[in-house]
């Protein structure tokens, strides 16, 4: 649809325009009624797409000059539409996985997902955040008489990495929509249980929606409330505080007052510690950079099963690339990214979980943390 601006010069032109408006039922924006069209005054009409050529031909034929001031009405409408945050939008059937969701909607989504898939999904309490919010994970488990090994995946340990929680939600949706029809997923669930924590750093995530989009850490207060936030991915008990961290609260990589000083870290660590003999694989999802990272960040000494870890990661990166050509770099954090200590991935491996990986999703820096919503779907599809 297009919007035309015309200033009629003569009475004949006015008459023709009035005729055009009434016969073609054009949408008059200004003035409201055809009888108010005047010479020398602005006329704005919206012409629906199928009629655009006809109207242009008619205007040309009658030597009426015009200007197309809006070449695509729908586009403008879409751009100016405020994101609807009404409470009717939490039903998973209507849940839009290709948009970013605030925490309130994610909480509702978890409840709905469990309710709609109760034969497979249970929601479990993990602990509380520093600001007293409840942390939950979803357990996707096919009933069976054998105990199954566990794959754990957490998202959103860093608040600004919005594509990460988006991926966890997408992942759950894909599994639940396709476990009956997709043989790979069906076999996966026969042999493994999936535990998914959609947002680990809940307080930080909320803060990035409401106050500071590029916030990274949690929201624990320090120095009498003059400084906030510990980097949760420097707070785990894996060579804590040794390298790649800051002891200064104002830094983005502040490692906290001690290993596991943060309630969010403790909630996750205590749970994983309890279940560690059954956990086969620990995955933690971040952005950006397009990496699959293996332990360790705190030392360049390779882990005991480093060949196997690399082999699997390389296969994963190849499969990922097969989807949209996105290339991921694979390797140990200390070599290909930077040194760091206290990461959850290192800790998981150190306590005996054999396969421990950090995924850094799209992109490479062109958008960085502000990944546009159009990239949510391809990112999630290729990572899947």
């Amino acid at each position, binding site marked *: 649809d297009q919007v035309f601006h015309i200033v009629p010069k003569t009475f004949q032109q006015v008459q023709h325009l009035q005729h055009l408006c009434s016969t073609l039922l054009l949408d008059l924006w200004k003035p409201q009624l055809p009888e108010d069209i005047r010479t020398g005054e602005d006329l704005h009409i919206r012409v629906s797409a199928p009629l655009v050529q006809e109207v242009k031909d008619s205007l040309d034929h009658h030597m009426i000059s015009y200007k197309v001031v809006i070449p695509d009405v729908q586009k403008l409408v879409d*751009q100016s539409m405020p*994101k609807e945050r009404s409470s009717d939008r939490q039903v998973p059937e209507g849940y839009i996985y290709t*948009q*970013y969701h605030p925490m309130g909607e994610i909480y509702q989504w978890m409840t709905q997902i469990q309710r709609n898939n109760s034969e497979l999904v249970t929601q479990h309490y993990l602990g509380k955040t520093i600001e007293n919010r409840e942390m939950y994970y979803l357990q996707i488990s096919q009933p069976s008489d054998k105990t199954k090994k566990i794959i754990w995946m957490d998202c959103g340990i860093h608040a600004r990495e919005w594509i990460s929680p988006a991926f966890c939600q997408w992942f759950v949706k894909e599994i639940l929509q396709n476990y009956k029809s997709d043989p790979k997923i069906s076999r996966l669930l026969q042999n493994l249980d999936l535990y998914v924590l959609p947002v680990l750093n809940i307080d930080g995530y909320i803060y990035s*929606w409401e106050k500071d*989009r*590029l916030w*990274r850490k949690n929201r624990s207060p320090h120095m009498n409330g003059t400084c906030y936030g510990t*980097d949760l991915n420097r707070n785990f008990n894996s060579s804590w505080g040794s390298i790649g961290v800051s002891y200064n609260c*104002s*830094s*983005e*990589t502040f490692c906290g007052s001690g290993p596991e000083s943060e309630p969010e870290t403790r909630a996750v660590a205590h749970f994983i510690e309890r279940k560690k003999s059954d956990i086969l694989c620990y995955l933690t999802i971040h952005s950006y*950079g397009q990496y699959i990272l293996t332990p360790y960040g705190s030392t360049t000494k390779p882990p005991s099963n480093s060949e196997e870890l690399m082999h699997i990661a390389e296969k994963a990166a190849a499969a990922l690339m097969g989807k949209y050509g996105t*290339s991921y*770099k*694979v*390797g140990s954090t200390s*070599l*290909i*990214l*930077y040194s760091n200590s206290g990461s959850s991935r290192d800790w998981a491996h150190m306590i005996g979980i054999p396969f421990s990986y950090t995924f850094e999703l799209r992109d*490479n*820096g*062109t*958008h*960085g*943390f*502000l*990944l*546009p*919503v159009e*990239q949510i779907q391809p990112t999630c599809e290729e990572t899947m």
Partner: protein
Amino acid sequence: AAMELPLSHSLASRAAALATGYLCYRRGSPGRGLALRSLRRARRQDINDVGHKYYLELELEDVLDKDSTVNCTAEVLYHLGNKNIAPDVQFTLEGELKNTDEADNIFYNRIKSPEKELVAENIPDSHGNVPPEMEPIRLLAWVASGYVIWQNSTENTKFQLAQIKHVKQVKRSDEYLEFDYMILLHDMVSQEIIPWKMTVLWHPQHGVQVTQDSRQPKHASG
């Protein structure tokens, strides 16, 4: 003697990011932003009493048209000791970059004589959106940030433009366009977000210039 570096090595990717920033500054415009598509080869040389030199082969892509790519070789020299000297960068492009004269001129004419000077905030917004009419403003910042990145990079930094917090057009009596930007740079290595103020001059025939720039204290972006 230059040592071959694995392509995924952190030092190689930092040097590549720096070279890309510099290149983008020298060749970019509101109609053309360049980003690193892939690193093809990286070698590193330790030059006694001088610094560390990297020899890179890069593939760059056009930010607006991902299928449009160009190969390039670059040499980056990080100077020893004095951290106030920007690294030396030299590059050679293999092949032509897309001509952006038409897009540049359309933007130039649109902005040159405004009734009101352009003002905008948060580009991209929280959801990664950039309104189409703001895309040239964003690319101009991308290009200009290449200068800031070049001037302030070391082997221990890897900067990217994270967001434009604020941009204001400054009226000029000559033919140049001038913008005051407040941008946020992200350093991948320290994970810090660094606010930076920069004044950018541009003219279709004269390229992009950063005439003033200054790092801002952490809470300056508001």
